[in-house]
Structure formats: C-alpha cells, structure tokens
C-alpha cells in the first residue's frame, strides 16, 4: 500500500465511524437484550441439570433415591464428600493420581505426534499419503479390539503397565487429533513454508519453529477435548490396566452403583468431584484458545 492509499482509507474509516456512532446506542441496546436472552436460555437448558446433580450430591441416601428436584431437607454435602473419599480404602485418591498421569502423558504425546503427522499428511500430495489419510480416518469408524490389543501389549511387556495404557489411549485418540490438526494446518498458508525453506529450514526446524507455535488455538482445543475423553474413559483402563492398585476415576462411580442398591447421593458427590479437574483445565485452556487471536497466530 502506498502512503496515499493508507491515508485515504483512514479518512474513510473515520467518516464511517462518525456515522456508526449515532447508531451505536441503539445497537448496544439490542446487544444487551440478545445477551440477556442468551444468558437466560443457557441457564434454563444448561444450569438446571447441574442444579439437579448438585442437590442430589447434598442429600441423604433415601432422599436422593427419590430423585426429586426439591431442595434437600438436610444438607450433608461435606459428609458425602468425605464418604466418597474414604470408600474402598481411599480408592478415589489412587484413581485421581492414575487418571492424571495417564491423561497428561497421553495428551502431551498426542499434541506433538499428531500435529507433526498431520503436517505431513496435509502438505504432501501422493497416493501413499491418500492411503495413510484413509487409514487414520478409518480409526474413527472402528471400535478398538480389546483382546488382540492385549496380545500386542503382552509381546512388548507393556500390559498392565502405565506406559502400556498411555500408549493405548494415544493410539485410540490419534485419528481424532489427526483430523482436527489436518483441518487447521490447511488454514496456514503454504507461503510461510516456502519462505522458511528458502531461508534454509529443514522439515523438523520448519515444523517446530514455525508451524507448531502457529497451532496454538488448536493445541488448546485438542488438549481440552482429548483430556476430557481420556480422563473420563473407564472401559479401556479397565481392560488394559487391570489390578487392585490401578483404579481410574470413572471406575470409582461403581463404588456406589449396583443392581439392587445404589447410593445415589454418594454417586453424584463423586461425579461432582471427578468433574472438577477437567473443568479447571477447560477454564485455563479455553482462555488460551481466545488468547490465540491477540497473539495473531496466522498473521505472524
């Protein structure tokens, strides 16, 4: 842009802004109304179910089993929380530890391995790449095969080990992450690569120095979604990580559920407790998604 053009544009903008100023108040009012409605809708559709979970967690056993949305006659949230922690010899504490280790490790591996892989899948064009992409996509459509996977883990001496379950959780989440990363890498202009190549970057440096940081918003998204999935999974740890000391958080829910007699108050108190860590993680990383804009991801 030449100097003149820039000036003209600025003038144009200023006059527009003057015009806009008159309408601004009216617009603001509309915005406030829309926002109020949105808040109301979200309260009705989203908060009411939480309200039910929370009050059930505060009740006594028999009252909770009646499943009403009335306020508890006797609030015993704290006692319920203590009971939940103490159940089955502090199983919940072990479970928090195990689930946290499994989740953080898997997510770290996923963020690096899948963004790297997706970068190649998106940028390269060949028959082989087409096939590989289909293979990864297929993973979204097929459930895992439990027993054969155990056989593989046994071959490597990884069955019943923390690294084993971590690698399984990674393997199962790879298709999802590859799809998301591929989509987002497509929005990064190829010119950026070309400039870097001219500067003499090889593939690894191009990826780690330039591409990886550009993916910040999607990294946060992946971290949020896959951590929640892995943290909340109970079927796979149950099969691939069996043993008395190997509980994971979702499994603790079964302390309070059975065919004939369930402690619904404790179950819901447990649900509340195990929802807190992923919620904190969400609060932190969802800020980072939004922060990606001010950092000017693609602009840079």
């Amino acid at each position: 842009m030449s100097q003149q053009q820039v000036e003209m544009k600025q003038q144009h903008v200023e006059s527009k802004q003057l015009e806009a100023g008159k309408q601004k108040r009216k617009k603001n009012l509309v915005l406030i109304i829309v926002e109020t409605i949105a808040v109301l809708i979200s309260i009705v559709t989203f908060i009411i179910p939480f309200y039910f979970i929370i009050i059930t967690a505060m009740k006594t056993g028999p009252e909770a089993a009646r499943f009403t949305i009335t306020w508890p006659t006797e609030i015993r949230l704290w006692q319920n929380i203590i009971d939940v922690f103490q159940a089955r010899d502090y199983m919940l504490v072990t479970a928090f530890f195990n689930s946290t280790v499994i989740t953080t490790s898997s997510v770290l591996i996923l963020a690096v391995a899948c963004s790297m892989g997706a970068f190649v899948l998106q940028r390269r064009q060949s028959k082989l790449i087409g096939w590989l992409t289909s293979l990864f996509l297929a993973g979204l459509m097929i459930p895992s095969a439990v027993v054969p996977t155990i056989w593989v883990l046994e071959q490597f001496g990884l069955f019943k080990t923390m690294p084993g379950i971590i690698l399984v959780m990674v393997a199962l989440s790879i298709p999802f992450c590859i799809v998301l990363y591929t989509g987002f890498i497509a929005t990064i202009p190829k010119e950026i690569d070309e400039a870097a190549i001219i500067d003499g970057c090889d593939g690894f440096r191009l990826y780690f120095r330039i591409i990886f940081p550009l993916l910040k918003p999607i990294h946060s998204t992946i971290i949020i979604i896959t951590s929640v999935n892995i943290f909340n999974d109970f079927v796979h740890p149950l099969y691939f990580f069996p043993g008395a000391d190997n509980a994971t958080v979702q499994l603790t829910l079964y302390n309070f559920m059975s065919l004939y007699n369930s402690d619904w108050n404790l179950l819901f108190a447990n649900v509340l407790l195990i929802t807190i860590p992923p919620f904190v993680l969400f609060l932190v990383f969802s800020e980072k998604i939004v922060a990606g804009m001010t950092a000017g991801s693609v602009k840079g």
Partner: protein
Amino acid sequence: MKVNKVYSYWLLLPAFLIYALLFLYPTAVSFFFSFTRWTLVDWEWIGLENFIMFFEESSLMIGFKNTLIFAVLTAGLKVVLGLMIAAFLTSQIKTKKFIRSVVFFPVLVSTIAVGITFKVLMHPSEGLINTALSWIGIDGPSWLGSPSLAIYSVALVDVWKGVGIATVIFIAGMMSIPKDYYEAHQIDGGTKFNAFWHITLPLSRPAINAVILLALIGGLRTFDLVWAMTGGGPGFSSDLIASIIYKQYQAGFYGLSTAGNVILFILVACVVYPVFKFLTRREVDL
C-alpha cells in the same frame, strides 16, 4: 522433489507407529475373528455364518433406522447450534466466559450421571420438563417411555451433552481467522451479519468440515448415552446398530459382535466417504 523432502515421513512416523501397532494391527486381527466362533481363547472357523446371523437379528432394521436418524439429527444440530454459539461467543459480549463454561460443562460430566439426570427431568408425570410444559397448558409426552419418541429424546440430550465440543472447535477455527479480514470488511462498510456470512463461515470451513465429519461418525457409532438412558428400550425401540453389537458382546458372542463391527464400519464408511469427498472438494475450491 525438494518439497517432499521437507515434509519428511519421519515427522509422521511416531504417530503412525503407535497407531499401527496398537490399533491397526489388533483391529485387523479381530476382523479375522469375525469369521469364527470365538470364545477369546478358542476359535472355530465358520465362514460367513456370523454375518448371516447378524443380518437375521430381529431388531436390526429398527437399529438401522435409528442409527441414521440419530446420526443426522445430532450431527446437524451440533454443527448448526455450535456455529451459532461460537459466533455469539466470539463477538463483543460481556458474559462470554460464563456462557462458554456453561455450554462446555456437560462434556465433562460422566455419561452415567447425565443419563440419570435426564431420566429424572424427562419423567412423564414428575419430571421438570413436563411440569414446565403443563404451566403453559401442554400435556407433555413420555419422553423416554414412548417407543416412537425415545430415540429423539436421547438424540436431544446427546446434542446437549456434545454441542460444547463442536463449539470449542468452532471457536478455535474462528480465532485463527486473521483480524485483518474483519477490519477490511468493516472499512468497506459491511455489517456484522454480512461478516459472518462472507468471512467467518467460509474461512472456518476447515473447522466446520472437521466437526461435520467427527459428529457424523460419532453419531453413527456412539450408543453410550442410549445405553445409559433407555438401554435400547422400551423393548428394542431405541436400539442403535452399535447398541445391538454391544449387547452381543456383553452376551459373550465375540465373533458375532466383531462381525457386527465390520458391518457397522462398512456402513459408516459408505455414509462418510461421499460426505468427506464432497467437503474436501469444496475445500479445494477455496
């Protein structure tokens, strides 16, 4: 030549290695067992018998119909509602942090708890939903107890639970649109609404495509919420193909359920592949 050297296969290797060893290979092995009667320890080759038996499953047609309804309904609603919420949350509003958290929270809550909660809220006479409807003079239906309605009710809850994921992906997509575009648009005198149509939508197409794909495949395959809320019932009226397979697995019919998985995989591929081709074709146009 040179370019391909830059995009080295070495970068792809770690992901592929883990995936091939712990997913592709075991899956291929399990497909073999779909032709056998399998007790997890012993197997006996029985050819296509499992596939024939799967197609003879009496509730298969219900499951087939329900699966398509469920997938299209949940994927469609998640995409549309997710886009609307995401667009709203990336605009200049004060309560976005609150609404964002509130919308995402259901994703975090375990399916079991969601199932119980909505069973209570959807109870025909004592549930809050029908109580609220009665205030405005509507006699609410039996959301989960009516065979013709159950699958739709579960689908709505699935949207409620899953729309947060779509929203977050959309927000990420919208956040990576360079601000310059909007500035330029504003300079040219465009309205906010126009900006959404002409900038936000086309430029977040990769995110939209990803969500359509993930939600559609997810919708064709999931059954955990159906399982938690209706168990496929009343009777078999809200069965999905995936829940039929799961029931067979639970009954210890391992070969049969593997055959079911192969069939479901083919079905999903048949639905998703054309959609995928269509979406990526449009991507090239861009």
